[in-house]
């Protein structure tokens, strides 16, 4: 199904303004960037994070009194899936040096490095190994490695500016100084980066960058990294993978150290215990909570499980009030609604346009600015492109890429997206795409330092589940980098901790019992349970008749 008639008509307005926009771009002219004051005014009025009615105060735990989205607070103000008193902690099912919870990029990088540092590793994951947002990261990975024009200092400044200067400087320092080493490591494992014939890596720009430092593997960078790391993990005898076995509680020791986790086998319905000397939590983000009803680019399993587990164990959340809405998710055709359109399209030359085919924002602003500008254009200014499904979108003028960079560029560098749209009858090398902001990333999360340590000894965290590195807004290409840099650090430190610092002690779930009591004391009477593990997309009429399936299986 190509674009229907009405959209074909509107599409012509994009084609009419295109030659002049191409000429401008070739001359190096650009739509003006906003000042920092203009940015602030825009996001405080239009960014979803700033909608007061969409948030509420957290009544329990380390962040009591802070505000977060209702959908996140719902999970924090929920009970455990199990009555802790019914769990027999003396029956240990698995024992290991390092337990890694989460089988995405951060968890797998941690597993490889922990194993190299002499640890026995169990990696437990909710779905299949590699089923994670990493797999879906398309655009690329940042690193300042072309030192004749770039340096880690510019990468540092870009990252801080993108995060509204709120980021933890120590974390950003680690990120930018270990970036080239991460790329070298991935190259040595066999990741196929896009490069020039003599081996120099290709790089592009993205929103908020001052240098073109985004490295990529065509448009499936995350998938290429994930499948390579997973393949390597499968070669290592010291790494045991437990699939379809999410953790549902952390287990502490009598000394207050993290000592393992309680897991749930989603296929057999059994709960089981993994005892470990160190635990690395790398469970990713929360897109599947559909905060404020937004569609999401996230993986099926992105339900904020790690936030719940860490929070109940006493770890504070940082920047939990901020989520990232990616400016360009597909809004039409509806079969692929919510699908992420990488920022790399804009980095490669595609303009963003309103219903009149006119530019209204520079296409390379940081993501929160860009998304807010689209919302303003559609909602307040009435310049959105109406879709046959009753929604509003913005044009992303992808055909400019072939015109600017040579015929065939879109099909070569964006082959994944080209195929997906082609199935819908749309050739994105010739026709623009319709996009709108979608829920994309959890900017905040569990508080940690640059060694991935939390306030709970023996509990390390890495990747999207953490908060601080990205401040209030992450830049493109910093998430794949985040999971590789900090996944490796967590793996190394977890292995060292297991060897030198872990202390044998009785296992306990008393913190869960105490958390239940705190909920009660705060007057929260609820039968909600968390983590929810998976979202429920059943039609409501059917759900009403599914009398016993609520909350994914057995709830004691």
């Amino acid at each position, binding site marked *: 199904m190509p674009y229907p008639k009405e959209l074909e008509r509107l599409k012509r307005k994009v084609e009419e303004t295109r030659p002049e926009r191409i000429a401008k771009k070739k001359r*190096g002219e*650009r739509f003006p960037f906003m000042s920092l004051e203009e940015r602030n005014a825009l996001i405080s009025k239009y960014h979803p994070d700033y909608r007061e009615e969409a948030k*509420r105060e957290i009544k329990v735990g380390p962040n009591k009194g802070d505000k977060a989205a209702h959908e996140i607070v*719902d999970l924090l103000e929920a009970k455990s899936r199990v009555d802790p008193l019914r769990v027999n902690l003396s029956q240990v099912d698995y024992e290991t040096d390092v337990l890694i919870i989460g089988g995405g990029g951060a968890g797998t990088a941690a597993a490889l490095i922990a194993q190299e540092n002499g640890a026995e590793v169990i990696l437990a994951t909710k*779905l299949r190994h590699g*089923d994670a947002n990493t*797999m*879906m990261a398309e655009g690329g990975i940042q*690193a300042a490695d072309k030192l004749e024009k770039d*340096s*880690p200092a510019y990468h*540092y*400044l*870009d990252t801080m*500016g993108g995060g509204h*200067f709120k980021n933890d400087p120590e974390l950003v320092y680690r990120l930018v*100084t*270990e970036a*080239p*080493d991460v790329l*070298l490591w991935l*190259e040595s*494992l*066999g990741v*196929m*980066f896009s*490069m020039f*014939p003599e*081996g*120099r*890596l290709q790089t592009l720009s993205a929103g908020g960058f*001052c240098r*073109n430092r985004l490295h990529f593997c065509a448009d*499936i960078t995350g998938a290429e990294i994930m499948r390579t790391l997973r*393949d*390597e993990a499968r*070669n290592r005898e010291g790494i045991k993978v437990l699939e*379809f076995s999410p953790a549902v509680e952390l287990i502490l020791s009598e000394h207050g150290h993290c000592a393992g986790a309680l897991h749930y086998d989603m*296929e057999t319905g059994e709960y089981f215990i993994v005892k470990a000397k160190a635990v690395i939590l790398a469970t990713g983000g929360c897109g*599947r909570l*559909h905060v404020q009803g937004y*569609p999401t680019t996230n*993986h*099926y399993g992105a339900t904020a499980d790690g936030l719940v587990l860490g929070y109940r164990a006493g770890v504070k959340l940082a920047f939990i009030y901020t989520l990232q809405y990616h400016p360009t998710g597909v809004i039409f055709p*509806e*079969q*692929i609604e919510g699908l*992420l359109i990488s920022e790399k399209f804009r980095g*490669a*030359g595609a303009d963003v346009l309103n219903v009149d085919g006119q530019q209204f924002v520079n296409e390379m602003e940081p993501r929160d600015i860009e998304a807010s500008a689209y919302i303003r254009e559609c909602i307040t200014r009435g310049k959105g492109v109406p879709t046959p499904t009753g929604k509003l979108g913005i044009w992303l003028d992808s055909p400019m890429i072939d015109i600017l960079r040579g015929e065939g560029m879109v099909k070569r560098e964006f082959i*994944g997206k080209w195929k*997906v749209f082609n199935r819908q009858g749309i050739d994105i090398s010739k026709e623009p795409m319709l996009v709108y902001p979608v829920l994309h990333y959890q900017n905040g999360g569990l508080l940690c330092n640059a060694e991935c340590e939390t306030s709970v000894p023996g509990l390390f965290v890495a990747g999207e589940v953490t908060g601080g590195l990205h401040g209030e807004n992450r830049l493109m290409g910093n998430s794949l980098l985040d999971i590789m840099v900090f996944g490796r650090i967590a793996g190394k430190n977890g292995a060292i901790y297991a060897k030198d610092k872990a202390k044998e002690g009785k296992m306990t779930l008393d913190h869960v019992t105490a958390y239940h009591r705190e909920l009660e004391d705060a007057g929260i009477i609820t039968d*909600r349970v968390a983590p929810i593990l*998976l*979202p*429920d997309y*059943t*039609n409501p009429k*059917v759900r009403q008749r599914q009398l016993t399936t609520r909350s*994914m299986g057995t709830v004691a």
Partner: protein
Amino acid sequence: MSNVERNPADKSVEENAHLAATTKMVPVFIMGKRYEVPESLTIMKAMEYVGFKFIRGCGCRGGICGACATVYRKPGDYKIHVGLACQTVVEPGIYLAQIPFYPANRASYRFEELKSVPEEIFKLYPELFRCVACNACTKICPMDIEVMDAVSALKQGNIKKAAELTFDCIQCGLCASRCFGELPKYHIFQLARRIYGGKILPKAEHLKRAVQVITKEKSYDKILKSLMQMNEEELRKAYLEREIEPTTAVEDWRPSEKRFLLE
């Protein structure tokens, strides 16, 4: 508010319900059993619409993870069709089943010890030569990969061609399910791509240099530490003074502002 039972996915669910009210319902047969679903839904959303809750057979929901491979037949058509459930729209009367997993043996190896020669692949996967060139793999690939051509390239020792042809592979396993010669293709191609990426493609010299001066010699630490000590106002100023490289710049672009450069 806090006590209200809320399903975070409800907005999407409502939209599907809205679709049911406004679009035509069509019959589909899920593993042989008949259901009525809105005609515009994907196979995945249609199955959820009627009440299936996926544990297996659902992953990224964006066409890249290979969890939701689905085979189906259409009325009056003898051919087997294939698609990813998250990407393929239902058709009236289709008979479908998901294949969330297909067993295929994977050879284990020490990557650092492998040489960049095709014989390494032949040794680990001798079944490569059982290919009878029936082309069933190419026909079933939901990513439109020229699977059989990639097998042929490997047999001829062309690792580069095999790696490039299979770059879009999502490892769903459907090719292995149809293979007359019993080849675990997606594992073989993963090995080919790793050898090509890690041992055949030329190395990035600028990357080695960057690791040397940034990570090992810590040459940029002085500049970085000074940035880390700046207050927000100073940092804002430095941020605004950055020169922006044009997105269309080529490799020889050089900035005129070089405060934080050392080379």
